[in-house]
């Protein structure tokens, strides 16, 4: 199947600074991919390259299997980091402009979204708060019934109720076959809406997996010993152990794969107690970034 959104060896340099460093990422049609990363990780630059706002230094991007071209924008809904609005037009006039610009514009849908976001059509765009600007940009993005949605922090500035509506919009679009890439600082949103998680750090893609694989895969086994943890008997060489460290009498192992078998191996070292901890996405995210920072 051709990926709906595709980045191949994407690199963007600004003089000596490499903002995006050799990123390859394919997003299947109908999938929602959540992009996580600390500030300055390269998320916004990646979006700019994907949307054709800036030219990659090297590598390629494709939407619907094709490089960016005028026709890309026919079925592409996007919200950049700072919503692009016409400050001298009202909210309602934005809709009127979209009706003229996009063949696929759906006025019923747009009005429904205005209502959901409690946006007043007569209000001037220049008078909107940051959150309401995002809401208008989202309304416009979804009003054209897009096949691909690229949303850079779509719910920043929105209250929790409107944030939930943004998730519902993405879920509804994906259920109808659209493909979504969105970034967020809110891990909980990614945990709900996304089926794939991409994590950027220092311009590089350090994690790219389905959320189910991530959650089934990694666990922490913590064992407490009477004295300092004994000789690990080559435990550190087990490929299923990503990281192992001991602090005082406690041994902590980050594992991937069959944690039961590893627990059995650690049992054999005769600890006083041992426990297995499931990791949620926030733990996985923080571990991945911390691990990358050390490397």
């Amino acid at each position, binding site marked *: 199947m051709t990926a709906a959104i595709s980045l191949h060896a994407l690199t963007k340099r600004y003089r000596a600074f490499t903002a995006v460093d050799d990123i390859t990422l394919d997003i299947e049609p*109908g*999938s*929602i991919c959540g992009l996580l990363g600390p500030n300055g990780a390269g998320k916004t630059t990646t979006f700019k390259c994907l949307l054709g706002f800036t030219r990659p230094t090297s590598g390629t991007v494709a939407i619907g299997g094709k490089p960016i071209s005028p026709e890309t924008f026919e079925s592409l809904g996007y919200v950049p980091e700072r919503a692009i609005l016409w400050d001298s037009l009202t909210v309602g006039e934005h809709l009127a402009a979209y009706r003229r610009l996009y063949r696929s514009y759906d006025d019923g849908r747009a009005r429904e979204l205005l209502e959901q976001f409690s946006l007043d059509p007569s209000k001037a765009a220049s008078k909107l708060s940051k959150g309401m600007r995002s809401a208008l940009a989202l309304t416009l993005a979804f009003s054209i019934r897009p096949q691909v949605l690229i949303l850079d922090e779509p719910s920043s500035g929105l209250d929790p109720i409107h944030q*939930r509506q943004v*998730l*519902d919009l993405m*879920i*509804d679009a*994906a*259920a*109808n076959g659209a493909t979504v890439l969105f970034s967020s600082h809110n891990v*909980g949103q990614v*945990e*709900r*809406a*996304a*089926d794939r998680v991409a994590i950027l750090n220092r311009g590089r893609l350090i994690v790219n997996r389905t*959320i*189910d694989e991530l*959650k*089934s895969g990694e*666990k922490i086994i913590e064992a407490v010993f009477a004295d300092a943890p004994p000789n690990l008997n080559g435990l550190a060489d087990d490929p299923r152990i990503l990281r192992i460290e001991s602090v005082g009498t406690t041994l902590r192992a980050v594992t991937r794969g069959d944690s039961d078998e590893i*627990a059995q191996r650690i*049992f054999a070292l005769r*600890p*006083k*107690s*041992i*426990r297995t*901890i*499931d*990791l*949620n*996405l*926030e*733990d996985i995210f923080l571990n991945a970034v911390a691990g990358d920072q050390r490397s």
Partner: protein
Amino acid sequence: MPAVYTVDPRSGVPLYLQLIEQITRAVALGSLAPGEQLPTVKALALDLTINPNTVARVYRELERDGLIETSPGRGSFVRGNGSAGEARRAVADIALEALDRGIRDAKSLGLARGDVEELFARSIARWYPTEENA
């Protein structure tokens, strides 16, 4: 009667496993009756605010396990024949996993086998009083 599901996205347990467990329970307990229609993938995804591919995966796996059947264009239904038997087996699996975790925790706390057997007997006696057992 439609069953109500609650999932916890912040848990370390993948959402599809949480949902499979809950639907399996509902079938085993009869709150989802044989022949009853399940919500569409889209409706359940929106209802729970979770990814639609996650719900689709749940339905695929439940179908593979013989609990539900899906006919294109009509939707997904609890299987009429045998679904209760499949569900009982699936529920036994869920229960075994829970017991397994408990016993593993007991071992993890450093208890000896005899201690765990004694605790297990106490727990059984508590939840299955003799009059009910007879």
